[in-house]
């Protein structure tokens, strides 16, 4: 394209001498995840209050405590970026875990194959969510509420509420350390999922398109993006990630439980939203989500270490969430030159 534009004698924009340096600083600051300030403060306070907090052992505890929620949060973040919501993650975790265990124990399927079936089931539930939310034109909240309910029921139905136990030892290794090191396998899996998703969102056309879809679906459609199929794909990814989280949960306890994941939903969404994503869609990053995850994980862990009364823990969590979100906002506003 080379349409000749008329030269303009007066083209200097009303800007200070080097706008780009300032812009670049701003851009770097913007690229920082949401409430990072909050996280840093929490970490400092915890390490002062508890001598155990900064031990490598404890940090590994945190990783293993957050990995399942963290992986689900990646899917939830993608869905939230496109302006949707997925309430079914926790239930998908439960049903896929029960399903693979049931294929393995009840039907003698090799466990590897059973795990693949679990992933497929997760994808299938995601597909149903996606189809309802796009072709079915049902609000994502309603669509995933329905699948959440159905999947939770089926998870109980499979074994009438009984857990299923005893899995192959290679499977249990998923939640142990990498042999000969102190590094937990599940932590690596989680980090890989985050890096993969971050790469997709930043560098792949399809991933980048998610922001456009969440920002203004009509603009995205008129720009020739495959809005429907991308949205469906995001729900499928969320389903598959929930199934992976289900595997980690099963592996950790050597037991597949129908009620697993049932309390995770709010945590998962909280992680994403604390990480700076807006439920209105169009914004949110993997780095932010990860920070949100660490805030929740560190808080829970820290209060256990400090033996805060169980009744007061939720109070502390509530206060800290607000403080973390607001401190971040404050910090940014100051740097922007306040308003």
């Amino acid at each position, binding site marked *: *394209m*080379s*349409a*000749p*534009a*008329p030269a*303009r*004698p*007066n*083209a*200097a*924009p*009303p*800007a*200070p001498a080097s*706008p780009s340096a*300032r*812009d670049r600083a*701003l*851009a770097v600051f913007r690229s920082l995840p949401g409430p990072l300030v909050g996280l840093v403060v929490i970490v400092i306070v915890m390490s002062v209050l508890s001598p155990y907090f900064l031990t490598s052992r404890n940090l590994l505890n945190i990783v293993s405590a957050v990995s399942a929620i963290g992986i689900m949060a990646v899917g939830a973040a993608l869905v939230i970026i496109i302006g949707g919501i997925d309430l079914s993650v926790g239930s998908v975790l439960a049903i896929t875990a029960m399903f693979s265990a049931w294929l393995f124990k009840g039907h003698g399927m090799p466990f590897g194959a059973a795990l693949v079936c679990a992933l497929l089931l997760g994808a299938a539930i995601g597909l149903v969510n996606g189809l309802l939310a796009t072709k079915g034109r049902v609000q994502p909240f309603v669509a995933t509420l329905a699948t959440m309910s159905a999947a939770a029921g089926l998870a109980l139905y499979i074994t009438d509420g009984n857990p299923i136990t005893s899995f192959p030892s290679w499977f249990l290794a998923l939640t142990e350390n990498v042999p000969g090191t102190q590094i937990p396998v599940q932590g690596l899996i989680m980090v890989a999922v985050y890096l993969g998703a971050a790469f997709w969102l930043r*560098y*792949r*056309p*399809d991933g*980048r*398109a998610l*922001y*456009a879809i969440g*920002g*203004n679906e*009509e*603009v*995205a*459609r*008129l*720009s*020739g*993006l*495959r809005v429907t199929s991308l949205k469906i794909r995001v729900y499928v990814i969320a389903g598959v990630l929930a199934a992976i989280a289900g595997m980690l949960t099963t592996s950790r306890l050597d037991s597949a439980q129908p009620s697993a994941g049932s309390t995770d939903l709010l945590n998962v969404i909280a992680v994403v939203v604390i990480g700076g994503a807006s439920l209105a869609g*169009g*914004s949110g990053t993997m780095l932010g989500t990860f920070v949100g995850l660490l805030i929740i994980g560190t808080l829970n862990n820290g209060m256990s270490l400090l033996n805060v009364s169980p009744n007061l823990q939720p109070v502390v969590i509530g206060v800290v969430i607000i403080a973390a979100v607001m401190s971040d906002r404050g910090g940014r506003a100051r740097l*922007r*030159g306040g308003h």
Partner: protein
Amino acid sequence: MTAASAASDRLEVVGAGSSSGSSTGLVCTGLVKEYAGVRVLKGVDITVAPASVLGFIGENGAGKSTTSSIITGVVKPDGGSMTIDGVPYAPSGPAAALEQGVALIHQEIRLLSELSVAENIFLGRLPLAGGRLARGRMESEAREALQALGVDLDPRRQVRGLPIAVQQEIEIAKAISRRPKYVIFDEPSASLGESETERVLEQIGVLRDAGAGVVYISHRLEEVRRTADQVLCLRDGQRVAFWDTGDVPQRELVNAMVGREFTYQHSAPAPATDREVLRVRGLGRRGAFEGVDLDVRAGEVLGLAGLVGAGRTEVVRAVCGVDRPDCGTVVVDGKELRRGDARAAIRAGVVMVPEDRKGQGLNLDRTAAENITLPWEASLAKGGVVSKKVVKETADKLSKDLDIRGRLHLPVASMSGGNQQKVLLGKWLVKTPRVFIIDEPTRGVDVGAKMAIYEIIRGLAAQGVAVVVVSSELEEVLGLAHRVMVMGGGRSRGVLTREEATPQAVMELAVLGTASEGSTGSLTTSTSEKTTPKTTEGQDR
């Protein structure tokens, strides 16, 4: 160019400059506003006298809207003061400004699409009867307010789905039905056709005669000249000229805005080739339009003219697959496009710049660069990876080509309207298209940018692109097009060659009687075919 040298360009102030002596009216002194450290207003003085119209002009990004927002309490100034009739005036928000009788017709249309027309008009001051909303009264008053503008619209219907022009008229009705003492029209005519604009200007006359002080912002200088009692020109956030009369030669206005001698004459476009690129046959969509045929050849510019609501937008939307037509075919380079498949159309090189910049064109929260590359990322990707560098380079290049001013890696929302429009154009010029459809190409664009956009359109045609221009500015269509198709009531009313297309001929076709069956579809063969519409009196309704 630095601010200092810009100031040295300053034209002599003609007539009585800032009327600092008199204390009647709305007087603003030294308004300053900064965004992210950038001064966009550098001490603007502006006085709005009662019972007069102040024409307010300036390039895109000069600071007109920012000034308006300060006056109407939408944003807080970083410096300066305001008084009304000598009494300090510092509105805490739009509500406070409205209470003091200062109203704004915003540049971007801001209506609630889920609510009814009447409720939009009365938002913030719903009429009550016995503690309850007086729906009947609200609706009849809304109807009156609209009728004053010549709009015949059911006030109970939802705003969603109304054409932009009608929405703009609702905005105007909303503001002036409050009987404000001071009212700022920020480019009210940008999305209106000639006759609608005419009625708006009429209303402004009525307001002035009733004693209101009016500020009229427009890039259509002819309107400013006709309406204004004084004219104020802003450049780079500074006041550069003031005339105590509206009757300023257009050339002088342009020179003040642009800061140099500037003339532009539509010249005859280069002849088109004979190779047909776009062929549309029998296109129809129930309730919108029917039986539309059109052909565009490589290097040709086809203009679509008609009154607002004629269905032009709907036709081009169907052509590029954004809406699904019920019948008809769209053929590009001999290949038929799948109906209602925008992706396929884009892949075939058919792109459209929509008229609704905010709703359909740009993702306002994303950066300009991201908006520009949005449709092309898959093809810009190297090894499946879209690098920051590619995005930046692509955007930078276009920004240079199109002279986009504003920071490309800040959200588009922070750019001025004209620059947003250029970003929107640039988005579809990353790859040279086969068929380029532009709906209202110069909405809210200043003269300089307008000419630049015309050059872009001509340049595209010169490269062999088939161009379709939809515009409510007749001058624009006539100046650019090889042929003009006139639409009315959802049908083609005839096609005129460049020679035949005088303003009178077009308006006659657009306004008068239903086109004879013969004239619809006459576009198909050659440009020289004569169209002889019957001038029957009967109107559509």
